[in-house]
């Protein structure tokens, strides 16, 4: 009997085209875009902080206090040899006196420095390993009669950690607020949809549909709508982030700021996929719970 009946896919029971659906989708796309940018910002801040921390942990600057009784070159050579013997796998780079003086410019300005100014000799140490043995370095240099201070960069590392934590916290807070706003948008949309589709719902109720059955329809509708918005928002966020990373961002270019060195990696894309799914899940659940509550209230009113 049904041989000629071609259409085998059941229609969705709620109308696909809702009033104000485009406006709602736009709002969801913008929410998802901002949420995705916040996520990328938080991840980039965390990654940049970790990179800098790693660099700081594996590098140090030895300041050789030049004793006026001996020549600068001789003292620097002793220090360099001592360090090379102690740290054979470490890159040891002595800075020339001119380079060392150049580092004082931020404090002393570009005036000519007096010839007898005791500018310390500087040697930078960089290793690929797990940090440097600062105590041993100091002992070895003392044993060779070299008076030296070692700057292990912990002062900068602490500040950097605090800044990065603040950035991550701020981004996470914005992300959370955006998700809450999206939830609210979905709750309003579901309520509006329940009112707009009152006649359809009354038919569902009449043919014996349970509240759960009807709520599932709203869950499906919200999930489709939110997933579409989230995916479009996330894709836009990726493009914007790549654009910011690649573009000549005026004074910020090469400043070491977030987008200066970061693109979008596989990890970021996985996080964005997770964000889209989470975004969809909570919005669909909010729609379902709103529908259930509203339908129960309607039945109580009867």
């Amino acid at each position, binding site marked *: 009997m049904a041989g000629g009946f071609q259409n085998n896919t*059941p*229609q969705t029971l709620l109308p696909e085209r809702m009033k104000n659906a485009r406006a709602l989708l736009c709002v969801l796309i913008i929410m998802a875009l901002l949420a995705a940018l916040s996520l990328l910002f938080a991840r980039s801040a965390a990654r940049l902080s970790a990179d800098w921390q790693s660099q700081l942990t594996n590098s140090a600057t030895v300041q050789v206090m030049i004793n006026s009784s001996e020549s600068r070159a001789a003292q620097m050579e002793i220090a360099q040899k001592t360090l090379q013997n102690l740290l054979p796998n470490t890159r040891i780079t002595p800075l020339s006196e001119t380079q060392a003086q150049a580092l004082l410019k931020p404090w002393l300005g570009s005036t000519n420095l007096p010839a007898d100014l005791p500018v310390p000799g500087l040697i930078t140490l960089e290793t690929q390993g797990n940090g440097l043995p600062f105590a041993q370095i100091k002992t070895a240099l003392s044993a060779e009669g070299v008076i030296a201070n070692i700057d292990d960069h912990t002062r900068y590392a602490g500040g950097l950690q605090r800044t990065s934590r603040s950035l991550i916290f701020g981004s996470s807070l914005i992300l959370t607020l955006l998700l809450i706003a999206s939830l609210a948008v979905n709750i309003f949309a579901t309520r509006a949809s329940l009112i707009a589709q009152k006649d359809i719902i009354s038919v569902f109720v009449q043919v014996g549909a349970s*509240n759960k059955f009807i709520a599932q329809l709203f869950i499906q509708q919200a999930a489709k709508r939110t997933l579409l918005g989230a995916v479009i928002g996330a894709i836009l966020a990726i493009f914007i982030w790549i654009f910011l990373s690649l573009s000549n961002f005026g004074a910020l270019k090469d400043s070491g700021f977030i987008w200066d060195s970061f693109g979008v990696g596989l990890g970021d894309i996985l996080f964005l996929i997770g964000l889209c799914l989470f975004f969809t899940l909570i919005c669909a659940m909010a729609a379902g719970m709103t529908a259930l509550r509203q339908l129960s209230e309607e039945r109580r009113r*009867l």
Partner: protein
Amino acid sequence: MTLQNQDIKDIVHFDRVSLRYARGPEILSDVNIALPEGSFTFLTGPSGAGKSTLLKLCYLALSPSRGLIHLFGQDTSLLANSAQQALKRRIGVVLQDFHLIEHLTIFENVALSLRVAGLSRAQYTDDVVELLQWVGLGHRMQALPPTLSGGEKQRAAIARAVIAKPDLLIADEPTGNVDPVIGRRLLRLFAEMNRMGTTVMIATHDVDLIKEIDARVLRIENGRVFKGLNA
């Protein structure tokens, strides 16, 4: 005296049921009716007498202000939502204004109660197609309700009400928008369902229709129900 559930054998049993909207006058007053299992009943009366309201009470779209309603032996005032929905699945309803869902095809509209009952498309397609052909809508299965005439919509609404083979069929002016030939055909469908065991209650103005079938008649006037066609 309140009736106990085990005392009620009727499919529909009203015990001194009254209904008023908010603080308005009583639309129904002390109505006592009983529809035994397998009965066929016409409900008639002038417009505004309360026929549709009485039917709404029968299919649980309204709750009474006073009195008790038993459906399938169960006191409806004591039923939880889920139990009420289970009862509604045993009732087929044809409404005056059709209540077809406009974005769904006629096929989907008719299949609705089967989908709600959890049947798969493969399980219900043949039945829906057969019934639509029987009511003369075989060529309109993929049409949307706004493109149908009043009579076609009426037939689609009837098909939706009977597709799940309900235990109780309630129809409000089911032949009001169809020509006499189709009207008689639909009445034969109701009679056939009744013969198979469905309890049928039809509200109608159409005296000719009432005379077509040897069935019990209830008349409603000023919110009170009487037996027989005439006072």
